[in-house]
């Protein structure tokens, strides 16, 4: 079982990233659950998505001890860091996360948003870049499944950029 937390601010597309990741796992024949926490009612604001992937049926739907925490904002990093299990990895965005909590866990600080902006002209691609990185780092989903999942969920006309964003994410870790 792999438990993943994805934290950031509303509008960064992390909920959608969680959905894509879970869907990719299913394409791989695995079991997956995605959930999220909301702010007041359904409005924007700080957001966290959770994904659990396993080879068998998953009982409890929430992340208890995350193997991975992806943090795309300082707020989210601070707020959700505690969810990481001992030895779990923090993957943090170089641009938005300036203070890394003191920890003995592995930490990966990578230029996710920067890559999105520089290579694809829009921070909106950060979440897909992050997915590429996550995939590469964990191997929890196959590249084919991830690409399939990404392409089935992104707006028409942006397929190529998103495909490239996955590759760019892979390259960040690779």
């Amino acid at each position, binding site marked *: 079982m792999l438990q993943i937390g994805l934290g950031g601010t509303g509008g960064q597309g992390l909920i959608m990233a969680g959905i894509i990741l*879970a869907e990719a796992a*299913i394409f791989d024949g695995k079991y997956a*659950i995605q*959930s999220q926490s*909301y702010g007041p*009612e359904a409005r924007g604001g700080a957001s966290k998505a959770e994904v659990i992937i396993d080879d068998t049926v998953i*009982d*409890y*739907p*929430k992340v208890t001890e995350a193997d991975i925490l992806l943090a795309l904002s300082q707020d989210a990093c601070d707020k959700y860091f505690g969810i990481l299990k001992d030895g779990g990895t923090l993957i943090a965005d170089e641009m938005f996360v300036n203070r890394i909590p003191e920890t003995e866990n592995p930490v990966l600080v990578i230029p996710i948003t920067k890559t999105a902006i520089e290579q694809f002209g829009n921070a909106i691609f950060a979440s897909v870049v992050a997915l590429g990185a996550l995939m590469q780092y964990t191997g929890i989903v196959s590249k084919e499944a991830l690409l399939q999942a990404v392409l089935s969920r992104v707006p028409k006309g942006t397929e190529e950029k998103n495909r490239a964003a996955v590759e760019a994410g892979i390259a960040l870790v690779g």
Partner: protein
Amino acid sequence: MQKPRLVQGNQAVAEAAIAAGCRFFGGYPITPSTEIAEFMAEQLPLVGGKFIQMEDEIASMGSILGASLAGKKVLTATSGPGFSLMQELIGYAAMAEIPSVIANVQRFGPSTGRPTSPAQGDVMQARWGTHGDHGVIALSPASVEECFNVTLKAFDFAEKFRMPIILLLDEIIGHMRERVELPEQHEIVSVYRKQPIVPEDRFMPYQPDEDEVPPMPPFGAGYRYHVTGLSHGQNGLPSESPEVARKLLARLHEKISRSHDEITLYEEYFTEDAEYVVVAYGGTARSAISAVKSARKLGINVGLLKLITIWPFPYQVLERCTRFAKKVIVPELNYGQLVGEVIKTCGESKVFPINRFDGEIMSPERILVQLKAVARR
């Protein structure tokens, strides 16, 4: 079977509704149920169905009852505050015997509470929320796949028993997405309300058949009749007779109680030899099964009775499952609701409630700790 997909609980309710033949949705947005309405708004026109956003939840209930009288299978979806507002017309639906399905995706209350946080605080309200007596069927799924299958059941029960059926989700189940394998449309067999076999001049709209349920032709199909929330005779007209009132009220209960077994949906895990039994439902059942598996690993002889049908409460099943149990543990996301029914069957001394009422999900650990305590491990 369809290929495995990632589907949200709320979406599964909506998909199942359409698969069951639901062709009318009247609703009013409210977190955490709104996705059901949004899905129906998009999908219903594709199958010739109708979606309408009404001015409030009372109007939503009214609209689906009207549409049901016009022959449609109908759905509305809401959460606590809206569910409270719907109570008067839920009673109307019970009294006038109008098939309808009401999904309540529970959030933390009372009042506005914490709109995006889960709870199981409307369980007793689902039974007793409206004034006066009537039988109730309420179903509570614990997974996205169950959302689909239980919604199919809800429509079947609504049509078969001619009554409002409450689908009690919680924010956990409504909002989470998980892998499901759903049946194809052609694999689904759905019930539609019985039609009369007599001609109009001999038709008595509230004359029950042996199953205590009267046939129900849609308006416009050649049978004129009167529908009222007043106490009414078999001819449908208002009546001041105590005898008529008594018979009507009894029938509203008996049409359900006589089909108790068919209506009672549940799952058992390891109950055969259980010294300790956990009784759970909805999102909390997910925590419970996880805790039970952990406890079993520790050698604790524990079983789980997962209720899907909450109302009518399955006293007999509970009785059977707990006959030899030393302790019965009832975790709920409320201050203690369904545990009261468990006490009626098992007695107060045997029953250990676990109540979480802060808008957060029950952790498996909390249940496990309680299990260890009762089992003295």
